[in-house]
């Protein structure tokens, strides 16, 4: 669609502390475009969780955001190890995050469940040894 605003970010896999830069930037952009606080919050939280996942599990990746008048679509793609059991990963409390990540307050097994909770549509394409693509859509009620 021609009226979409497209944003592209690289999520660094080396630095755990830099996660959140893409979601922070998108949040700012949506705010300046006048989207509702609820929609902005949902997009930001879902994106941040996905960024954290990419840093913890996949050594970073890319984030593509398309902003439409009625929805925000986000594609997060990485070349990580893939998710062996998506159903399990979707369960609240299930986590494979290492101990150092847990000590920072992550690894509670809330990442994917939170993403699902805050997006209106979510799809995961994952292949072991190749990577994962996470598509999410947040609808904007205006």
């Amino acid at each position, binding site marked *: 669609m021609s009226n979409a605003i497209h944003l592209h970010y690289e999520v660094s896999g080396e630095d755990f502390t830099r996660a959140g830069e893409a979601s922070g930037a998108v949040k700012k952009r949506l705010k300046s475009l006048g989207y509702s606080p609820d929609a902005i*919050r949902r997009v930001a939280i879902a994106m941040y969780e996905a960024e954290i996942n990419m840093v913890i599990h996949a050594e970073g990746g890319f984030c593509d955001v398309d902003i439409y008048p009625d929805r925000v679509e986000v594609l997060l793609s990485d070349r990580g190890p893939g998710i062996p059991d998506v159903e399990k990963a979707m369960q609240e409390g299930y986590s494979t995050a290492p101990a150092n990540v847990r000590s920072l307050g*992550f690894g509670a097994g809330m990442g994917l469940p939170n993403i699902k909770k805050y997006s209106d549509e979510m799809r995961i394409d994952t292949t072991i040894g190749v990577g994962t693509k996470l598509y999410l859509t947040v609808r904007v009620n205006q």
Partner: protein
Amino acid sequence: MTVKDLIEELKLTILVEGDLDREVTDCYIGDLLSWVMGRAPEDSVWLTVMGNINSIAVATLADVSCIVLVENAALDTDARNKANIHGVTILQTEENSYALAVKISGLLR
């Protein structure tokens, strides 16, 4: 009630000063960042022991009014710098979450 009122009433120490005129309408306690991010209400005061850089991202995304590091939990240097950049107010107290929350409850009524 503003962040400034909260600081005065509860004698909190200011570690990073953001917008002290922000309204505080609620309170949330938690240390698991994903949990907090998904559930902390906007404009709440967030009580935690997590003083790392990811806490600042969570505070920004969840749009809380301020962070209070309870039981004198430490704020690391990266977190302090990021909070300064993003204008996130960070406060500290020697009290634990429960004791502080009870007082906040009285103030928010």
